[in-house]
């Protein structure tokens, strides 16, 4: 049978010399869901952006349904029947679903009328089960539905090949299940789905075949039915990964960080956190689970003093810091590692300059001169102690990989020796090696008697590290208790707003 997509020996070298793909060949057969698996930076997304015409390959051939193609841009790819849905949706938030669909369809078919498009949308919805309210305004819809709109949009542009980039990263487990069902029904319709992910369970559940990439090369293509998660993991990282890390027992002591009936508003002025009460004690990790956007980020920012508290109290140790500035909180022993590296780091500054970002006071002389020699010493300690791979301390941090950036961000907080940590998404987007390193570091901090509030949307991470777990949903804590009380299934339900029992 003729492959739907055939990519031959694709190479991509960026102008700055970074080699993203070193000769990748990929075959996707008609009527299959094809998983593209790999660590961050393996080249999955680059490969798909080449297929979608967004990036030009340095060399190599692309065949679509038996025709050799050379796309000048995504518009060419769309015409050839390829559609792509990104992690971040390309929807106009203030438009209705129908407006968004119309916008996308009219870009390839200027003659399309509103009613025609609405009719074909309704027909498609019935056929695929992708039910969306056409008249609703996009920003009012949950993320799962917005994703459906994106898929619908792509299909209405007559896509025969649908590329999904990490589609479940923003979904609750229930929504993810829904998505998988949809994908299977699309397969019945003969639509080829390419599914980019780094989550083993998902590829096992939904795909027919899997291609594993590592460092810009294809490790192998396997039939899903003939493989196991452990084998895939091995292919992905090139070594056996200990997905379970040692969890030292908690030796919980005094309460170091306390949040009492805290209400916080988000940027739009809506209540993002609604009366949360939590405690973190010395020598324990409190994991806060939840789907992205349920108030965890706002809670963390409120604790760090970056966001005003509308109501409630926050204590670090015995000190009420509710109305104190961020710098004061840091001084009395709080550390905050934000979820975004572009917030926690100044990308255009070098490592030394980034290391002193939260350590500024300690490197100042009496006359407020920065002691650069000492600053470099501290930076050196971070680099050595946390295994940061860098050519030089004076290299701008933007040239470091995400994992090394994260190590700098976590490491510089640890060398300050604070009492309490608020750590948000510490391993987001990191490869397995870096993830393991960061998690081990957090676990060892606990044994040193630090109090850690770990905010993560990665359930494995929460389950691996936490002594106690709190689940947040729509700004409220759904449940809180020792980790042993939570199974993966129960967590999934709680995160989806089902309190269970």
């Amino acid at each position, binding site marked *: 049978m003729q492959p739907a997509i055939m990519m031959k020996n694709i190479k991509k070298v960026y102008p700055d010399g970074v080699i993203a793909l070193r000769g990748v060949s990929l075959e996707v057969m008609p009527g299959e869901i094809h998983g593209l698996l790999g660590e961050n930076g393996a080249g999955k997304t680059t490969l798909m952006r080449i297929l979608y015409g967004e990036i030009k390959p340095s060399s190599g051939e692309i065949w679509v349904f038996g025709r050799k193609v050379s796309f000048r841009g995504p518009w060419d790819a769309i015409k050839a029947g390829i559609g792509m849905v990104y992690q971040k949706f390309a929807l106009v938030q203030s438009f209705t679903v129908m407006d968004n669909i119309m916008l996308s369809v009219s870009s390839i078919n200027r003659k399309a009328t509103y009613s025609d498009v609405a009719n074909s949308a309704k027909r498609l919805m019935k056929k695929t089960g992708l039910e969306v309210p056409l008249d609703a305004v996009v920003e009012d819809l949950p993320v799962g539905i917005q994703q459906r709109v994106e898929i619908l949009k792509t299909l209405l542009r007559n896509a025969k090949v649908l590329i999904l980039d990490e589609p479940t990263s923003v979904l609750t487990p229930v929504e993810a299940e829904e998505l998988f069902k949809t994908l299977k029904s699309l397969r019945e319709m003969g639509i080829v789905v390419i599914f980019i992910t780094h989550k083993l369970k998902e590829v096992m559940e939904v795909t027919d075949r899997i291609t594993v990439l590592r460092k810009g090369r294809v490790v192998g293509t396997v039939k899903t039915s003939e493989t196991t998660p452990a084998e895939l993991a091995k292919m992905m990282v090139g070594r056996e990964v200990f997905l379970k890390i040692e969890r030292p027992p908690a030796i919980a002591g005094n309460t170091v960080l306390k949040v009492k009936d805290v209400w916080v508003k988000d940027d739009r002025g809506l209540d993002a956190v609604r009366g949360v009460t939590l405690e973190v004690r010395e020598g324990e990790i409190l994991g806060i689970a939840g789907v992205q956007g349920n108030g965890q980020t706002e809670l963390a920012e409120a604790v760090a003093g970056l966001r005003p508290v509308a109501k409630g109290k926050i204590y670090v140790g015995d000190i009420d810091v509710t109305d104190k500035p961020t710098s004061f909180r840091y001084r009395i022993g709080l550390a905050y590692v934000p979820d975004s590296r572009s917030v926690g780091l100044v990308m255009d500054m*070098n490592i*030394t*300059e980034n290391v002193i970002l939260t350590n500024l006071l300690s490197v100042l002389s009496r006359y407020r001169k920065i002691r*650069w020699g000492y600053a*470099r010493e501290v930076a050196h300690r971070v680099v050595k102690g946390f295994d940061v791979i860098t050519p030089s*301390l*004076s290299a701008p941090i933007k040239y470091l990989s995400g994992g090394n950036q994260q190590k700098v961000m976590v490491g510089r907080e640890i060398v300050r020796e604070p009492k309490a940590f608020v750590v948000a998404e510490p391993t987001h987007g990191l490869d397995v090696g870096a993830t393991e390193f960061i998690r081990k570091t957090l676990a060892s901090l606990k044994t040193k008697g630090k109090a850690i509030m770990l905010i993560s949307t990665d359930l494995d991470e929460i389950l691996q590290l936490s002594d106690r777990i709190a689940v947040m949903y729509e700004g409220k804590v759904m449940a809180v208790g020792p980790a042993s009380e939570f199974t993966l299934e129960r967590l999934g339900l709680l995160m989806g707003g089902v309190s269970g029992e």
Partner: protein
Amino acid sequence: MNVKKAISTGAAITITIVIILAVAAGAWWWYTMSTPSQPKPAATTTSSSTTTTSVTTATSSSTTTSTTTQTATTTSPAKKKVRVAVLFDVGGRGDLSFNDMAYLGAERAQKELGVEVNFLTPKSLNDMVPLLEQLASSNKYDLLVLIGFLWTGPLNKTADKFPNQKFALIDSTTGVVRPNEMDLLFREQESSALIGILAAAMAYQLGGNTVGAVAGMDIPPLWKFHIGYLFGVKYFEMKTGKKVNFLWQYTGTFGDPQVGYTTAMQMLQQGAKVLYGLAGLTHIGMFNAVIDWNNEGKGKAFAIGEDASQEWYAPQYIPLSGAKRVDVAVYTAIKDVVDNQWKGGIVTLGLKEGGVGIWDLDGVKTFAELAYQTHQLKNMTPDEVVQIVKNLREKYIPQSAWQLVNELKQKIESGEITFKTPTTHDEYTHIIQELMKGNLNAALAKGSIS
């Protein structure tokens, strides 16, 4: 890191600049070395061509000039040609006024006197002292001609340092007499007195009896205009017995057309029929006000320009311009050097010397052509401008007024009367008060009117 980075960035910039300098210097050296003969023939051709022109002009012009040029060239053929640098005001050429007139004067000197003239436009007052020092110490120029009052201070600072360098300052004075410095001033009272007569006469032709002036800043050169203009108006009153209302307003600026517009509009509403513009760029606003006043049908009114011929700006409504012949001043200064008649001190130019006056139709045409070439005059040709102005003058200036003008002009040119030049503000206000009372002789330093 930062130290090193900053120093190295600095070093990188230095190196680059050094490279640029080296390349340019090398190119410069290569150019001068490889083509040593190239500039020379060019120089000889220009000099030979200018000699021919000077000969032709010599034959055509009066015998006295021809002999002096002849002797200059024959007695000392080895003697280098007179070189002059004309230093413009800030802004330089293209103003259709001072700087362009200075250029015309220098060009005439180049043609008729066979001198070589270079030009330079300073960027600001700050550059004037260093430029004077640089040019004076280069010993290249026999004369530096400085256009405009802004040069006064800088000249005062540098003139003593270079006793062998001749300077000519146009339209201003340092107040110090030096053998190497000639300050050329204009006797503006003389021309503005004639303008005053014509303005009053035109006001009556237009069915009114009010004349006005939009003036710049309350400074000595403007005092002279005020005295002259008022004198002319009062002279008209005395000779014809017709009463004339006189309006005079300082706007405080030479550079704001908007203020000129509003000031002029107020005067027009007070019944002024003729407005005299004495405020540089500001009185362009006055011109616009007069144009609008006529076009909107509020009545008929005229404007009068000053310094250069400004009739081209709106020939239907600007019949006259007072002349301040910067070109004559520049030419005079250069000629004095060429003729070895140089004397330091203040030289004033009036009607007799052709330094001030009323622009004739030839002058109108010259400036209309300049404006036409620089695309500031649109919609009509210079010849049309001249024709319109000619008709306007014939229609609105009665013969009797020209008689009065010629009568006064004759008295001034013959030296029968001369005007006072006030040195203090009090003296100035006193003269104006007396003039307003009708005491014409208060404005005169010599002679009397009866």
